[in-house]
């Protein structure tokens, strides 16, 4: 058995396969709109009940055309026998395809070892968002304006994300989102204190119902980013986020490095400019960037502001109760950090406080928190049934916390 493993190892080092995906034709012009033919009821995962009559395949098409690192990383997971790095012949993630010199063989062994060790590390244990919960979230149509972004220099096309103008999202697009978000969480867990996945689910569910292509005055993309936080990360007080991703040894961070490197060098694409919309909302580069910045700013707010204040007021509560994430969620909302701090003060948060009572008060006194909870309840309704429920059932604390949506 050991000899077999050794032989497989030698074989994989000597023969590096080209892992490039067969290229799809690139359109340099505006992406034309395509409508699905035939029955779409089963096709559109964001319209399981068939009530919205969705048929526009634009977002799916642009995803299929994308060759961005995050999309390529996702496609690799779909290729048979090329995923497990521990028992199968290792996937040559850093292979130099045409150069079989001994040094490249050594580099491949080192890269494979790092990949294997990473899989065994604690950061790899971070909880993932369940796919069915993303599917439940996208049953809702959050409205506003969406953008179709083609590859290369294709011009972005705006559309009304409502009624039957909203795009159909098929299973592959949901699978991709599921992969992308969880990979980003894994990357961040390798470099920073792991984010509580349930709060990211709640946040994205509330902000955009995972409609990553949205862009309007209130914010751009999956995390509804605005200018100032992006500038803070891309050259300001939170620049360490990008640097740590670039320098990360975690394979989960690889698909995010190009964007991080580019933004460290050139600054982030100016968010307020309509010419840059795709840099924040396209399925490839846009989603990559949006994940880096939205998760990055969450970590920055939590670690540099919320936790220090909470630890001073209530050291035991700060470390054990998860309240830091509740206050971080509020600080990410429209009233910002000042709101989170004022609530901590007004609610007299201390180690004597009951965390559940604090959460009830947060819901009572903060509109954004209340809205997040309301949207979480709607997500749970859609998990029960894609059709609107005549009488929504009472939700358990576990459901509302998001426990049932992570694994």
């Amino acid at each position, binding site marked *: 058995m050991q000899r077999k493993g050794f032989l497989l190892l030698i074989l994989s080092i000597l023969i590096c396969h080209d892992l490039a995906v067969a290229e799809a034709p690139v359109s340099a012009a505006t992406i034309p709109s395509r409508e699905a033919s035939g029955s779409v009821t089963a096709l559109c995962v964001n319209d399981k009940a068939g009530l919205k009559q969705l048929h526009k395949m634009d977002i799916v098409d642009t995803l299929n055309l994308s060759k961005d690192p995050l999309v390529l990383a996702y496609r690799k997971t779909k290729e048979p026998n090329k995923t497990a790095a521990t028992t199968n012949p290792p996937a040559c993630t850093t292979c130099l395809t045409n150069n079989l010199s001994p040094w490249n063989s050594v580099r491949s062994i080192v890269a494979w070892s790092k990949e294997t060790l990473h899989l065994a590390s604690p950061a790899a244990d971070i909880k993932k968002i369940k796919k069915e919960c993303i599917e439940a979230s996208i049953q809702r149509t959050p409205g506003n304006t969406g953008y179709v972004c083609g590859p290369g220099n294709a011009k972005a096309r705006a559309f009304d994300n409502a009624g039957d103008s909203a795009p159909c999202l098929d299973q592959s697009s949901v699978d991709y989102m599921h992969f992308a978000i969880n990979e980003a969480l894994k990357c961040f867990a390798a470099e920073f204190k792991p984010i509580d996945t349930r709060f990211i689910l709640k946040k994205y569910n509330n902000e955009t119902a995972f409609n990553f292509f949205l862009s309007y*005055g*209130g*914010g751009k993309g999956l995390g*509804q980013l*605005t*200018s*100032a*936080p992006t*500038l*803070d990360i891309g050259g*300001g*007080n*939170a620049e360490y986020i990008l640097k740590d991703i670039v320098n990360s040894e975690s394979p989960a961070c690889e698909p995010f490095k190009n964007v991080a490197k580019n933004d460290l060098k050139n600054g982030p694409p100016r*968010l*307020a400019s309509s010419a840059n919309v795709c840099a924040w909302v396209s399925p490839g580069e846009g989603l990559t960037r949006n994940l880096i910045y939205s998760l990055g*700013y969450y970590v920055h*707010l939590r670690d540099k*502001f919320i936790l220090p204040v909470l630890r001073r007021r209530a050291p035991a509560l700060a470390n054990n109760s998860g309240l830091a994430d509740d206050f971080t969620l509020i*600080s*990410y*909302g*429209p*009233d*910002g*950090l*000042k*709101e989170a*701090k*004022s*609530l901590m*003060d*007004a*609610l*007299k948060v201390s180690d004597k406080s009951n965390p559940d009572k604090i959460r009830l008060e947060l819901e009572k*006194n903060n509109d954004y928190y209340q809205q997040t909870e309301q949207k979480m309840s709607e997500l749970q309704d859609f998990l029960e049934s894609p059709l609107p429920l005549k009488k929504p059932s009472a939700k358990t604390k576990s459901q509302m916390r998001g426990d049932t949506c992570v694994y």
Partner: protein
Amino acid sequence: MRLLGLIVILFAFVPAHSAALKSAADFFAESKALHTKARQEKSKTKKYAQLLELKKSFDKELKLYRQSPSQDLKPQLAVSRLYYAFEPAFELTTKKEISPKECERIKLSVKATDGSGKEDGPSPESAEVLRWLDLLCD
């Protein structure tokens, strides 16, 4: 006379917070007035002194809010929000020297943590703080 004395003693023990506490609007007005005074000062120390007057006023009022038995937190939250928006400016007054670069970082942090979704400007609280930072960083 005795009755009058008794009434005086009774009122002496009536809690101070039963009088109306200063609102967020009151503090905005106070900030604007102190900012005008600070603009006329030449030295940084004297400008800081005006801001520290505002801080003293906040500290006094928030202490009363915290002691208040009122169940309605909205007025306290509005004042607190403004106070915590000012925190970076209050911290600035503890530094002897501050470089223009550091000042820009502080202003960026105020805008970034403001939370306001509006691309054309921050919230009124952060806008007021940025006015002070422009003055103190000059």
